[in-house]
């Protein structure tokens, strides 16, 4: 099944770092997933997060307010 990955962030450097890490992991491990970056603050607030960047996998918030390592992202996607 295709996983839906969303990255919530208003465009700060940390959010960009997280997007890069997630895209790398998906590409390196051939994970079947869509990566979407959400920058609109109204959309972000629907997820009820207060610190960005946040990582949402299949509509569940997995990480918020910090940049994860590649290994951490990989283990969340398995």
């Amino acid at each position: 099944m295709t996983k839906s990955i969303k990255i919530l962030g208003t465009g700060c450097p940390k959010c960009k770092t997280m997007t890069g890490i997630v895209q790398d992991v998906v590409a390196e491990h051939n994970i079947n997933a869509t990566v979407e970056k959400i920058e609109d603050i109204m959309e972000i607030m629907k997820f009820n997060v207060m610190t960005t960047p946040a990582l949402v996998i299949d509509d569940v918030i997995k990480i918020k307010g910090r940049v994860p390592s590649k290994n951490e992202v990989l283990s969340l996607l398995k």
Partner: protein
Amino acid sequence: MFDWIQNIADWIVYDVINLDKEQHLAEALNFFIYDTTKILILLFVVIFFMGIVNSYFPIDKVKNFLSRNKLYGLEYLVASLFGVVTPFCSCSSVPLFIGFVRGGIPLGVTFSFLITSPLVNEVAIGLFVGLFGIKTTIIYVISGVLLGTISGFILQKLKLERFLTPWVKEVLVNAQRDQDRFQSEKQNLKQRLPIIWAEVMNILKGVIPYVIVGIAIGALMHGYIPEGFFEKYMSKDNLFAVPIATILAVPMYSNASGILPVVQVLVAKGIPIGTAIAFMMAVVGLSLPEAMLLKKVMTMKLIAVFFGVVSLCIIISGYLFNIIL
């Protein structure tokens, strides 16, 4: 406590590179090596300690605490104190603002948090101890917390809800206290440490370039500007110095790590410490980029009032610093 660093700096500059003690370059380089080493050590210690505290008081817990408990006026102080332990990232200020408003936390209390968070945080404290010593740091932290508390209180009294942007007003109408239970992670310190460690490294990596550039500028000024150079222009007796320094600093932006090493040299060269700290607080706490971010949730009028009240409080604390220190 830091003599050994001075010895290392002396050894590198006078013995290894073999510069003459009388040279400006030698003095500047010595100052640079000593300051960078000392400050990086202090930053590491403070960031690590605050990381542990923050791991046990994440922002969601803070929000729920403020949203659930009636604190009879103390909520401004509590919000301000939470602002100290929460690492600040300006890009999170809007989501934070909305999260607080949605949780039914009064606007003024939210402001208290937002004002203190950039002013007093792990990076600012680590730098302050390294550059000005413990006593000045304690006074700075207390005045930063009070500044957030008092500004928040005043802003609440001004009843500014009507100046929020329409969509935030809608959020305000639907605000509920105690809406979600925070799933606190039941982890012991050993399990938390890897994540805390990674965060400490991230923060350090982020601030090191600023600290080094800041100290380098400071070191150049230290070696080349004569003692008491600024005293002629900005003495304590000049009543306009504090407001002018504050107003000049409001549009500028730098984080604490870039501006503090420069401020320290300004103080060493004769600018009164209150004037210098008012300048620094206005640079760190208020800025044009921040105003642009806040435009998403506030009308220009509200931003103007917010900046006005905070500037006023910064000016007052600048005068107070000049009197006390």
